[in-house]
């Protein structure tokens, strides 16, 4: 070891003698004072000798680096165009990666701010039938408290029930999202309080905790603690004291609220009784190192003991809260958690960013090599002649590459920073670019940049330096074998770009397909009123809707008005059974009034719609859809009786079959569904407009609404907007991929442009000679573009199968999908190839129409 260091640091000729010298003194000391002293001396001296060596070395390195930097900057200045293309191209790649990294980190960090995130579980009830099983979002009210009381493994448990509130603080009235919780809420979840005491905040019956946002909204800058606010839930108003303010809820929280209030206020005392229905979501926090499976097995009997036979008796299961946002398939829905983004999106996004980075990286490599090969030969030749060492030249190239790619990294950060707001909007996130935040791979990116730069620099350095200076001047080696590398890079670059374009094309078409599909009803010009906020007094007395309906129908702008229990896409689910058949089926259910079919324009297939002429429709009339008929395999549907269709209503008779229509989004196949006649409990009103002036119609509706239901907020939307907003995810994705595609094509074009330019300059003389000998411009253009055409063709052929398989897999997730039309593949290829070939062609034409006299004179 010591010897090796000595050999490394000492002047070359002196190595051997120096080694001898060290050895001599070592032995002398060994003789005089023993081994330890000798060794100490030996190492001490080696160490001390090494220091000046290193200092000198670093000093010289530094001088060279200064020199390299100077040359690099000169080189960049000298060839602004290619350097710009090079740096910006790579920067875009880096920017994509940086953004995607933040996106994924944000996805992975979801809910991680809870101290006990890994031991929080949601309890859900699962009901099993012959025909399958269904997991419900909620459990019986007492489940959570029972678990907490009976099992030591459960450290804390809380029930949660979502509720819409109208909150009045002083003169301000707001609609707020509340969650009814148990006092132990703060033992399960970690929402730190800015004011108040988390252990006592919710213990009193009339206390509320506000989120910081809500506190600002209600009280502005004044101190909210201890203030009284009046909260209106359904038809009851209670005055509550503000006992705490939680700090701002992180953007990456699946649990969001404006207010927390005692669950008794929301659900009433019923919540504490068994067999009153599935009332609340239940979350529990287990003691560390508890096996949830073992606990699951243990608590089944405890819960079942309490349940009536035949009620929602079944099994209760634990779902790890940490898995919710990660995308566990079984844990895909929750009554109180925010909807999550699909995990496959992260993967797709990461894949795309990776592809763009590869395209940019290849572009960078390709350009550096081409520039070095075509433009810097003379420079290298002269420097070699002037005595530059191989190593120095090599270092120079490598250094240039590294400087360029680090510059690209910095530019990439800037681009990412600029694009960030748009990106956040696209992705529905609140990501910030914190450079030194946890898990940030600044180092990894820098390493990657350095590696890429070194690679891009080393390759030209490596092969140019092997050539004799004389050959360099003659440009001999260029016609040799080294171009295959460039070709492969180009091939990849083209292929990836084509792949991205095809992906974008299909995502775009899929989104359009979803938007334009025949829904089975006509959502255009239908206004939806949200009347959930109306007091039940109004609904129950059946006063509000008939009044509104009668008043509205006087106007020619209003065609029809219909009440509905659920809004589109939020139909409830229930169990239905036909008479004589054993297996019940879970069907979707909605209660509507007589005008529903006309307002939404749904077609009848068989039988009749609800009619006022048959009073029995109100009690046992049921209308089903085609999917229902198919599911139960009913031959003559209008003669069938449903034995057990609604728990509280008894048997029903199918009076009609309607055509299947998409009450859910097109992301799900149409499920068996059932409608019954609802008299009083409506949450939505659908209003079909007539004529071309929706603005006026809205004014009319607003006016009449305030007459029928004074003092209530007028909440409306257009049904087609609501339908379209179901596909916001798809829209975002197709947009995102499109933007990325444009970047990729731009990078590819810029790179190819530079390459074509270089090829043209390299062959200036050849072109001149050919022209003198009578070659036409077309021939010369063909000559210059031929290679690119060829590579592009191969890229297209290679990409198609890969794109086909990928799209097939992606589209397989959609029950209603756009066909994998061949022309999209062709178009995808064209979209990439046309601009590329155009750039190349332009360059080629420019080279071809030059006067041969000029080009031949160039030497």
């Amino acid at each position, binding site marked *: 070891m010591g010897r090796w260091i000595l050999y490394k640091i*000492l002047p070359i000729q*002196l190595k051997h003698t120096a080694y001898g010298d060290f050895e001599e003194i070592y*032995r002398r000391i060994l003789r005089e004072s023993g081994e330890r002293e000798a060794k100490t001396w030996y190492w001490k*001296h*080696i160490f*001390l*000798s090494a220091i000046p*060596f290193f200092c*000198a070395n670093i000093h010289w390195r530094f001088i060279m680096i200064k020199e390299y930097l100077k040359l690099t900057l000169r080189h960049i200045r000298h060839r602004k165009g290619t350097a710009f293309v090079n740096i910006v191209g790579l920067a875009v790649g880096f920017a994509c990666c940086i953004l995607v990294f933040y996106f994924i980190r944000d996805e992975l960090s979801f809910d991680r701010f809870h101290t006990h995130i890994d031991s929080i579980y949601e309890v859900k009830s699962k009901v099993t039938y012959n025909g399958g099983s269904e997991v419900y979002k909620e459990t019986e009210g007492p489940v959570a408290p029972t678990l907490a009381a009976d099992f030591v493994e459960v450290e804390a448990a809380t029930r949660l029930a979502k509720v819409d509130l109208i909150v009045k603080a002083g003169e301000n009235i707001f609609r707020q999202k509340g969650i009814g919780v148990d006092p132990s809420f703060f033992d399960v979840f970690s929402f730190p309080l800015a004011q108040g005491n988390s252990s006592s905040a919710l213990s009193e019956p009339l206390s509320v905790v506000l989120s910081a946002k809500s506190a600002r909204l209600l009280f502005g800058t004044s101190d909210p603690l201890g203030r009284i606010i009046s909260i209106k839930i359904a038809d009851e108003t209670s005055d509550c004291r503000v006992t705490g303010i939680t700090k701002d809820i992180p953007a990456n929280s699946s649990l969001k609220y404006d207010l927390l209030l005692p669950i008794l206020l929301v659900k009433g005392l019923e919540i504490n009784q068994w067999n009153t229905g599935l009332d609340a979501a239940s979350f529990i926090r287990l003691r560390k190192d508890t096996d949830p499976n073992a606990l699951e097995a243990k608590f089944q009997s405890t819960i079942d003991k309490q349940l009536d036979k035949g009620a929602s008796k079944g099994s209760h299961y634990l779902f790890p809260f940490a898995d919710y946002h990660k995308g566990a398939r079984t844990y895909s829905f929750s009554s109180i958690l925010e909807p999550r983004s699909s995990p496959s999106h992260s993967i797709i996004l990461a894949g795309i960013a990776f592809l763009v980075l590869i395209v940019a990286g290849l572009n960078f490599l390709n350009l550096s090599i081409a520039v070095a090969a075509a433009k810097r030969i003379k420079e290298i030749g002269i420097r070699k002649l002037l005595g530059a060492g191989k190593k120095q030249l090599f270092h120079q190239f490598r250094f240039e590459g590294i400087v360029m790619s680090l510059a690209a990294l910095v530019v990439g950060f800037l681009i990412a920073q600029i694009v960030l707001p748009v990106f956040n909007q696209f992705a529905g996130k609140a990501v910030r670019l914190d450079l030194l935040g946890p898990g940030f791979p600044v180092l990894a990116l820098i390493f990657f940049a350095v590696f890429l730069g070194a690679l891009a620099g080393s390759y030209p350095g490596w092969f140019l330096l092997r050539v004799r200076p004389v050959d360099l001047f003659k440009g001999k080696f260029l016609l040799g074998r080294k171009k295959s590398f460039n070709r492969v890079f180009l091939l990849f670059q083209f292929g990836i770009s084509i792949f991205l374009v095809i992906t974008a094309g299909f995502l775009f078409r899929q989104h359009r397909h979803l938007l334009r599909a025949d829904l089975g009803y006509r959502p255009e010009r239908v206004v939806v009123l949200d009347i959930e906020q109306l007091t039940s007094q109004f609904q129950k007395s059946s006063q509000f809707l008939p009044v509104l309906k009668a008043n509205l129908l006087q106007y020619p702008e209003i065609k029809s008005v219909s009440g509905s229990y659920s809004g589109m896409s939020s139909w409830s689910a229930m169990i239905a059974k036909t008479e004589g058949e054993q297996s019940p089926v879970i069907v979707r259910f909605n209660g509507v009034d007589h005008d529903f079919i006309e307002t939404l324009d749904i077609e009848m297939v068989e039988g009749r719609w609800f009619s006022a002429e048959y009073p029995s429709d109100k009690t046992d009339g049921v209308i089903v859809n085609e999917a229902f008929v198919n599911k139960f395999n009913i031959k003559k549907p209008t003669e069938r009786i449903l034995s057990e269709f609604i728990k509280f209503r008894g048997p029903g008779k199918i009076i009609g079959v309607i055509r299947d229509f998409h009450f859910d989004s097109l992301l799900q196949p149409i499920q068996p569904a059932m409608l019954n006649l609802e008299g009083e409990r409506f949450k939505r009103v659908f209003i079909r407009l007539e004529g071309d002036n929706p603005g006026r119609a809205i004014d009319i509706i607003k006016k009449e609404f305030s007459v029928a239901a004074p003092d209530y907020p007028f909440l409306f939307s257009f049904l087609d907007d609501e339908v379209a907003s179901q596909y916001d995810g798809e829209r975002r994705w197709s947009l995102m991929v499109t933007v990325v595609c444009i970047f990729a094509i731009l990078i590819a074009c810029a790179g190819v442009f530079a390459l074509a330019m270089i090829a043209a300059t390299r062959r200036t003389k050849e072109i001149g000679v050919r022209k003198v000998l009578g070659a036409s411009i077309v021939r010369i253009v063909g000559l210059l573009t031929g290679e690119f055409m060829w590579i592009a063709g191969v890229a297209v052929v290679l990409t198609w199968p890969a794109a086909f398989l990928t799209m097939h897999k992606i589209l397989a997730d959609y029950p209603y999908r756009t066909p994998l039309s061949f022309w999209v593949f062709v178009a995808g290829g064209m979209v990439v190839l046309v601009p590329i070939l155009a750039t190349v062609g332009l360059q080629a034409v420019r080279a071809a129409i030059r006067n041969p006299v000029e080009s031949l004179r160039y030497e």
Partner: protein
Amino acid sequence: MHTDCLEINMKRILTRSEEFLLLAVVRLGDLAYPVSIFDEIVKATGSSLTLGAIYFPLQRLEERGFLTSYLGDPTTDRSGKSKRYYLATKEGLQALAITRKAQERMWEGIECFKKN
């Protein structure tokens, strides 16, 4: 004064470590090799010199022509490596003289340390 100035060529003036090395070589005569040089300097100045630190100056002195060197016979005491012996050249002696002269001139007229 002017003529003397011309005599002193700045390039010939040695640094202190070079001066010590060269002096040690001169003092040791035929026996100057790194170990003895090292010992000599340590003995004369009591400084804690590192052995490795003398090779670069030695090499530099040799490059500048102030020293010559030759390899001695291999010895068993040194793991079979031979010693490199150094001899001062005429230029080296000259450089020493010039350095000394330059130094003396710089000290001229400064009295306070004379007693020591």
